Structure formats: structure tokens, C-alpha cells
């Protein structure tokens, strides 16, 4: 599992092992101020990081910046 969230310290506290930081609490994967294409590009970028996290071996809780 990869946990995508904005407040990564909470994710660390509850014990997620693969963590990908998000943009903001009300829009973790996107940016309402951007154009629709940019909004989606931000989402794509975060999801690409998630794929990297899935493919990376980890021994401890890891935040994929």
C-alpha cells in the first residue's frame, strides 16, 4: 500500500510504510487554481511517485519526496 496524504507526520504516526506527500488537505492530488491540464499533470506526477514507491524495497517507514 502507498499512502498519499498531505500531513505526512500523521501518516508516520499511524504506521504507513510507503508515504507520498500530497498537495493540500482539500485537494491532495490537484490544484484548483491551475488549468484542467495542469491539475491533471499534478495528479499524474504524484501517482508516478506512488508507482516508484511500490517498486522500491523499504525496511522502514519511508516518505517518497
Amino acid at each position, binding site marked *: 500500500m502507498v499512502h498519499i496524504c498531505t500531513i505526512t507526520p500523521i501518516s508516520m*504516526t*499511524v504506521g504507513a510504510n510507503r508515504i507520498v506527500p*500530497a498537495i493540500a488537505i482539500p485537494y491532495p492530488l490537484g490544484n484548483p487554481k491551475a488549468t484542467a491540464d495542469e491539475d491533471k499533470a499534478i495528479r499524474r506526477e504524484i*501517482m508516478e511517485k506512488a508507482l516508484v514507491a511500490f517498486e522500491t*524495497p523499504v*525496511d522502514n*517507514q519511508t516518505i517518497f519526496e
Partner: protein
Amino acid sequence: MIKIVHYINQFYAGVGGEEKADIGPSIQEGTMGPGLALKAAFGSEAEITHTIYCGDSYYAADTGKASAEILEMIKQVKPDLFIAGPAFNAGRYGLACGSISKIVQDELGIPVVTAMYHENPGAEMYKDSVYIVATKDSAAGMRTAAPTLAKLALKLAKGEKIGASIEEGYMPGKARVNFFEEKRGSRRAVEMLLAKISGKPFVTEFPMPDFDRVAPAAKIDVKTARFAIVTSGGIVPKGNPDRIESSSASKYGEYEYADLNADPSTVYETAHGGYDPVYANQNGYRVLPYDILDEFQKAGKIGSIHGKYYTTVGNGTAVKDSARYGQEIAEKLLADGVNAVVLTST
């Protein structure tokens, strides 16, 4: 004089360690082992007239039989109060103390009290049913445990009003009692902060739940993996058909993804009441990134996608409930061969 029966295990009775853990229960007049410390704390108000000891393995192997035998012994003596332990951090002993205390309380209707370390499995299992005094993790804690245990025991035996857990020293769970703090909250908060800054000990008034830890899963090959999305961000089909609550959610939803060609604001909304819903209501994919997952699959970047998503509202939702939702969702995902879960939180 208050008559007390005290329950201990074979080790504290001085019978033996692990090699004697399978002995059945015995009863003896007077105090044994840790009962001596309690006796001193009771003074002339109460007396441990009998001590029952039993092997931890004997009790654990057949709890029904062992507890029935012990109950019979206690009935003969007709005590006013029953004390078990302290078990400190001994697991089987703690479970036995909790179990027999609850049975005595339920069957004989007399007050009971036991004591153990907060991480003893017996504590989690029985702290809602019986008074459990919190002790240190080893017998070195007997000196501090005895007065607290004795004081609570006497109050219970006399039918006196029992104060809040923090005042009496029992674990929260059995009773919830309101009380007035002497200092107001702002003063307590500042004092706590000053103690923290200067490295002095302080006690939180709102302890975090104990979260479990799991070993990290092995890495996977995303090109062949089966993906699913789970979210605590409350994304539901427009209209929130299952009426998932905006806070303290009592359920999770399992839904098929909407048509990707539809305007997301017409097919999704968020049920979450803990963040500004405007942006998620405009475009649910900002919380539920299915559009990208679909794109990845079409591009051959990932294997396949589980047909449904799972959602709840992570807003004041009890950890215990959340853990249960997670368990159920995981079972469904495993049954479909999912090995890659993207969990999004707001």
C-alpha cells in the same frame, strides 16, 4: 473487618516457575507473597483471610474448568472482596487475573479489583469489565502498586464512591467519572508546555491511541500488479447513496467508478465534513485519482484495476471502527487478487 480472598499464580506463591505452571488451584489461609504488601497497606480495616494460587498454564489451558474450581473455593469462604494479582507484565497471569476477576464479579456479585501493566494483554481484554490498577511492568512496582490497590479495594468493599480513573489509579474503561480540575485548562496547558520545554516529566490529558505497526510489504512489479484505490476522503457517488456520515463515519462504501467521460462534478461528491468540500466536489479525481490510474493502465504502466473503490470519512472516526473497515476492505481486495492499494487521505 472486611474479608478478602487474594488470587496469585504459582510463581508468586513460591511454588515454582514455568515447570510448575500446570498445577491446579489450591487455597490456603492467610496471606502469601505479594499479599504481605497488601496486608501492610490494609492495616486493621481489612484482612486477606485466604489466598488461592493456580498455575498460569493450568488456568489458560482450560479456563472454564479452572475458573469453576476457583469459584467453588471462593464460595466456601464468602469474602466481601476479591483481589487478583498484580500480574505486572506476565501475559498468562494477567489474562487469568482479568478472567477470574470478571467471573467472580459476575457470579458472586462482590467487588473485585486486579492490577497489571497497561501493555499486559489482560488489560486490553478486561479493563472495560473490571477495575484494573495500572502497575509497572515488573514486581519492582509492587511497592507503589500496593497502596493504590489497597485504597481502591477498601473503597469498593465499603461501597464508597469511586472517583475518576486518574484519581484512583485504575485504567480508563471500567467507569467514566466527571470531576473538576483545580486549575483551568489554559494554565494546565502552559504548565505542560513549560515542563516539556525544560525536559521535565509531564502527563498528557489526551493520550493517543496505540497504533499497531506492520512490516513493510515487499516491493512489487507495477506492470503486472492489480491496483485498487481506497480513500478516507469521503468521495461517494453524487447524492451519497449510503448516507456515509460527514463525521464519525459508521460505515464505508464500495462503489463502481463513474464514466470517465462524465464531468466529475456531476458524478462524484465528498461526504467528508472535516475539510472544505468545494475542490473535491468540483473534481473528485483530486481525491480519488482513478483518471490517472486508468491512463496508466491504458499505457501499459500498470497491470490491471480492481473494479470498485472503497471510501469512508476519516473525520473523528474511531480508530477501532477504521481498523475494522480496513480489515474488511483488505479481505475483499485480496479475494480479487489486488496487490497494490493506493490509499488517499485528506
